């Protein structure tokens, strides 16, 4: 089976090479046959990578430990869903997933555009296949997922328990879809620049590609933040960690592109800027892929020193040099048709939006790579922390939200005072009212948060106004009932109202971020049973008693769980029970420390207990004090190691089971104090609600409109006649 996988991957490499050659040849000689053959190479690649991926998945699902990656990342006790997902928890498997997704998205896009952009397509195919060559070469010659072990072991090391969470398993495919999708507009931009055609057709197509990539990448980032908050023991959703930043960078520049391309569409401006932006976004996506696995930056996610650094650096270098060369050599094609008339215009707002987003991207980029930059310049590796990032991103985010309120409503070319009065009166009132209402509530102590609330209210006011006016206008035309009018309004103006929904979502998200960062209460405290502690505004948490249990899977003991039963009290009344826990997974397949000790030497994960609400979240995590338990464990280890040879196996195992159960039960009776991390975060839920709105808005924008089908039918007269002539 491993041989099949290896063979298929090698074949994929060969087909990708052919695709590059056929695409280039077909493009240069304007030969449709070769271009079609190149497109078929993309379809073929998709078939081959799917087959290779299936081979790997089957190996995981069957727990075929002759595969080295299966042995190191899965085990017989891993639940089936996570066995399937474990395929991409390894370096090799994740690269195969990347290649598979690249070929899938390329095939879909090229099939959908097979009758369009005939001059650009061959070059775009060549670029996409170029990426495929790179990744398949890595898989064939460097890190193969199909490496086998000479003797298949009976058990595997198991999947890191931190990953045993549904959103953590969807996060990589979503993120990789986002990354690979950015390769598509990159490829088409290269093609368009090569043939010097950056006009209407290219704009429309690239905008849709970019929207798709932005959509998936956004989902991936949101899922990562949610997982961090709900599953990890620190209670935060964003740490400005290098790997997090790497995924944010292409999203920021991609968002900028989605706005500025509208200016090019409407007024023929910013052509050089857009070309550079989309090329940069594609490069940043590859950079993000590289950063995660390179080990060049100290990060929580650092996967130490893999050897893939050098090939990636070469690829990224080539992308940067090629992009610069293309843009510079085609600058005559990229000349603007119009110039900016007034600073009070939609074009100017879009430009402002771009500058802010690129500014944030620069801050994030600088902070992320600072250790390398400072080492190069001063010899010392220095790094900056979240406070530094926040100093710059917070004001910029404020400006961004403000612009999102002004932009959609201000006129193109030049805004007039009358236009401003019509459109900004109510949103401004909303902003001022928010300010007046919040000041006496003590929010004034956190000026940045207050500022964000005010501009977000302004932006939401604009969006609400747009929806209300739109529904009113529709009803004036057709007399529909409001809900129906709203639906048809959105259906017939997808771009606009999808965009408004996204803005609404982002404003909501920022409100949640501002509130939960500025007004958070965090407490780390050690409590004995029966003790209480106060937190936040009027909440009390009481540690009632310890809890413990053994989680068993059909294949054996999954983990030992130790936790606490907490009661959340407000104003003397019980609000909710919280059950934070910590699970201890045994080491699998390795050298156990001891018959009982092995259960504590594997990984440990926190099970967070929280009461989520629209107003605030109460979040709790526990670190149980296992010192006395460990003393008993050491004693037990000695006893059982001595007894190992002297008892029949069945009796030994039974005794071991009883001992472990006793240990676990003992924790409940002895009830030592435990350490708790307690957080009260206001309005965190609004972050997730805002995120969902953004995704919904994105889906509305992506939904295909009717006129796409009409355009596909456009065929050139010459081609039709030539075809008919050929048949005669």
């Amino acid at each position, binding site marked *: 089976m491993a041989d099949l996988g290896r063979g298929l991957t090698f074949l994929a490499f060969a087909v990708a090479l052919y695709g590059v050659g056929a695409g280039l040849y077909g493009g240069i000689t304007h030969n449709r046959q070769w271009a079609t053959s190149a497109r078929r190479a993309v379809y073929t690649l998709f078939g081959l990578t799917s087959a290779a991926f299936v081979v790997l998945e089957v190996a995981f699902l069957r727990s075929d430990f002759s595969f080295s990656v299966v042995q*190191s*990342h899965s085990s017989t006790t891993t639940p089936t869903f996570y066995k399937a997902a474990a395929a*991409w*928890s*390894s*370096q090799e*498997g*994740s690269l195969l997933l990347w290649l598979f997704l690249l070929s899938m998205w390329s095939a879909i896009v090229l099939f959908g555009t097979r009758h369009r952009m005939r001059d650009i397509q061959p070059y775009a195919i060549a670029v996409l296949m170029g990426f495929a060559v790179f990744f398949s070469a890595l898989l064939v010659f460097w*890190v193969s997922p199909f490496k086998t072990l000479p003797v298949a072991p009976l058990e595997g090391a198991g999947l*890191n328990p*931190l*990953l045993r969470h549904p959103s*953590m398993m969807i996060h*990589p495919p979503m993120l990789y879809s986002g990354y690979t999708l950015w390769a598509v507009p990159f490829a088409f931009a290269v093609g368009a620049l090569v043939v010097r055609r950056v006009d209407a057709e290219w704009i429309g197509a690239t905008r849709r590609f970019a929207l798709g990539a932005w959509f998936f990448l956004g989902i991936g980032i949101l899922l990562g933040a949610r997982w961090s908050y709900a599953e*990890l*023991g*620190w209670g*935060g959703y964003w740490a400005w*960690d290098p790997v997090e930043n790497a995924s944010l960078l292409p999203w920021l520049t991609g968002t900028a592109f989605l706005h500025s391309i509208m200016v090019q569409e409407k007024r023929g401006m910013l052509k050089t800027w857009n070309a550079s932006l989309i090329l940069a976004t594609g490069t940043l996506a590859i950079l993000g892929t590289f950063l995660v*696995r390179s080990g060049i930056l*100290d990060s*929580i*996610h*650092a*996967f*130490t*020193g*893999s050897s893939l650094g050098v090939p990636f650096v070469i690829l990224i270098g080539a992308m940067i040099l090629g992009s610069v060369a293309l843009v510079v050599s085609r600058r005559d094609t990229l000349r603007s048709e119009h110039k*900016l*008339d007034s*600073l009070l215009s939609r074009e100017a707002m879009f430009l402002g939006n771009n*500058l802010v987003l690129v500014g944030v991207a*620069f801050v994030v980029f*600088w902070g992320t790579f*600072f*250790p390398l930059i*400072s080492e190069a310049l001063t010899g*010392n*590796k*220095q*790094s*900056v*922390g979240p*406070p*530094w990032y926040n*100093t710059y991103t917070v004001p910029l985010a404020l400006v961004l939200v403000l612009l999102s309120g002004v932009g959609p409503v201000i006129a193109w070319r030049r805004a007039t005072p009358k236009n401003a009065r019509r459109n900004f009166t109510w949103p401004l009132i909303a902003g001022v009212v928010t300010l007046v209402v919040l000041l006496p509530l003590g929010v004034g102590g956190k000026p940045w948060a207050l500022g964000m609330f005010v501009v977000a209210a302004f932006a939401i006011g604009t969006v609400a106004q747009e929806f209300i006016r739109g529904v009113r206008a529709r009803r004036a035309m057709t007399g529909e009932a409001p809900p129906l009018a709203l639906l048809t309004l959105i259906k017939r103006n997808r771009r606009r109202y999808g965009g408004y929904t996204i803005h609404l979502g982002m404003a909501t998200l920022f409100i949640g971020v501002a509130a939960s960062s500025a007004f958070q209460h965090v407490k*780390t*405290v*050690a409590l004995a049973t029966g003790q209480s502690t106060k937190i936040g505004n009027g909440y009390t948490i009481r540690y009632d008693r310890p809890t413990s249990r053994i989680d068993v899977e059909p294949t054996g003991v999954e983990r030992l769980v130790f936790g606490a039963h907490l009661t959340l009290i407000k104003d003397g009344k019980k609000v909710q029970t919280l059950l934070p826990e*910590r699970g201890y997974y045994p080491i699998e397949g390795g050298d156990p420390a001891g018959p009982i000790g092995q259960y504590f030497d594997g*990984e*440990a*994960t*926190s099970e967070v207990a929280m009461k989520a609400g629209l107003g605030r979240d109460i979040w709790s*995590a526990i*670190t149980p*004090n296992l010192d006395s338990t460990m003393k008993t464990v050491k004693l037990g280890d000695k006893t059982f190691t001595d007894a190992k040879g002297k008892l029949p196996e069945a009796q030994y195992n039974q005794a071991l089971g009883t001992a472990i159960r006793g240990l676990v039960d003992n924790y409940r009776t002895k009830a030592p*104090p435990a*350490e708790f*991390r307690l957080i009260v975060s206001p309005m965190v839920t609004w972050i997730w609600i805002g995120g969902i709105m953004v995704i919904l808005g994105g889906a509305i924008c992506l939904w295909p409109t009717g006129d796409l089908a009409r355009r596909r039918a456009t065929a050139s007269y010459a081609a039709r006649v030539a075809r008919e002539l050929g048949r005669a």
Partner: protein
Amino acid sequence: MDPARKRRVRLVVALSAALLLAGALIYTSFSASSEARSPSQLLASSDASHSYQLTGTVVNGSIKKDGGTTIEFKVRDRTGSAAVPVKYTGSVADTFRDGREVIVTVKRQGDTFVGEKDSLVTKCPSKFTENTKTQKT
């Protein structure tokens, strides 16, 4: 002012603003950053008024809990045995244990290094494993 001149002025203003911001960014990054040091580098020389980002491996058997929320442990070079003692208050990741790689912001106080609250980051143990993320405290 004719439109062309207006545009040039705008461009100059915008570029200057961008340069100023970039300058502020770059300057503050050097002053607000903390230097990454290994234990042997810290032992060789350390300034009691500076905080450093200590990176290294937890020495086996060195973790001591005093019952409250403060822990003491020793951090050694990844490849070597030079070790520094660290006193740390704040929450600790699930993955923190003997032999794990850690990053913690510390400041020297006498003979020991005091860790900044909640700055302890424990890295994941496995090598090539993609996506084996660890906890941040």
